[in-house]
């Protein structure tokens, strides 16, 4: 029991580290605006797959690290990740049974909410992004969700995390 718990933690941590790396990896200029919200996607997956283990606390900690990584206000991503993980935890039984493409729409809504919360914080601190391209990551996240889901599910099955 102990061993499987620590292994599960390692797998979750590993996937989050990879998500962090994907978040800051340098991309060509035209791709930068299309970068999906990798960390949010990974967190949503784990909170759906292991709802009794991944909660708001994990989301908060991850969000703090993400803020440092991307150079935002400390707590801004943490807040929005907490809220979307909370919603996922409330709804996971409904989202989990839906087919992948329907899940993708829930993801669109969740990521847009995540971005909206971030936009508010940015607006309050006086530097709102001016263009509609701000919303593009929500759509790319939606498109990449099936891929992300399958990859993480394989990872979870491979390491028998449950």
């Amino acid at each position, binding site marked *: 029991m102990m061993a499987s718990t620590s292994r599960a933690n390692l797998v979750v941590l590993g996937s989050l*580290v990879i998500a*962090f*790396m994907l978040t*800051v*990896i*340098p*991309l060509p200029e035209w791709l*930068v*605006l299309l*970068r999906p919200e990798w960390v949010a996607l990974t967190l949503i997956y784990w909170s759906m797959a292991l709802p009794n283990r991944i909660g708001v606390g994990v989301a908060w900690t991850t969000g*703090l*690290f993400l803020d*440092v*990584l*991307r*150079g*935002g*206000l*400390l*707590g*801004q991503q*943490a*807040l929005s990740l907490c809220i979307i993980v909370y919603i996922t935890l409330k709804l996971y039984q409904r989202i989990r049974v839906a087919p992948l493409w329907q899940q993708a729409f829930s993801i669109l809504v969740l990521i847009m909410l995540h971005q909206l919360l971030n936009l508010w*914080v*940015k607006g309050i*601190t*006086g*530097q709102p*992004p*001016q263009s509609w391209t*701000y919303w593009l990551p929500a759509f790319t996240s939606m498109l990449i969700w099936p891929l992300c889901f399958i990859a993480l599910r394989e990872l979870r099955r491979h390491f028998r995390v449950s």
Partner: protein
Amino acid sequence: MTLDHRQHHADTLRATLSLVMYPIQAIVGLPASTGNWLAENLSSRQTLLSHNKELRDEQLLLKIKMQKLESLEAENQRLRELLGSSFKVGEKTLIAELVAVDMDPFSQQLLLNKGSLDKVYSGQPILDANGVMGQVLDVGPVSSTAILITDPSHAIPVEVNRNGLRAIALGIGDTNQLDLPHIPNNADIKTGDLLVTSGLGGRFPAGYPVARVTAVTNNPGASFASVAAKPTAKLLSTREILLVWLEKQPEQKESPRTEGPES
């Protein structure tokens, strides 16, 4: 938490977290730095030789200019002493490298590989070979984030090199443009004017080039002219940047004339 951060209570937390995150950032930056390393090590002898020659020529030119500069600097210092105002000379510098990672695409920040262990401090000016790039925002133990002068939340006090007209250059989020608000319609500013740091505010050293004016539009209905300028520093293509320590805060002594009557 967010509000708390505006008063900078969470800086130590941020510094600690950044220490944890630095390995991730370093690994992500690794391919780029390896690529540069390979390019340096695998370049042919011919290119190295020609590059070497170019550099030697350039160094010769710079040395000649330097000789003149030193005598001018000494003269300047002497004259200033005569006037009774002290002026800092010779700031301490350190070269830092950029870590190749992408930050938030809607704010313009860089990650440097030097931190508080190298005595980097928050608010420290950073320069490249062509001009001012920005200032340090957050400092971690081994890394720090810097904000560019073109970030929408950044402003830098400048003056026109030609006539000393003071202004403030605001970033607008475009790496090729700075805005100069509040310049009267009849002010003496022209396209092509070089803007240098004025040193007011005590954060940036005075006299470093910042931008060149690209457009001055006088709108008769508005009370201010709209002036756009292009940063002289290569904000997007530099890999190495210069951190500057101000040795002495710029201070203006009382002029001798006001002291005169008392003594």
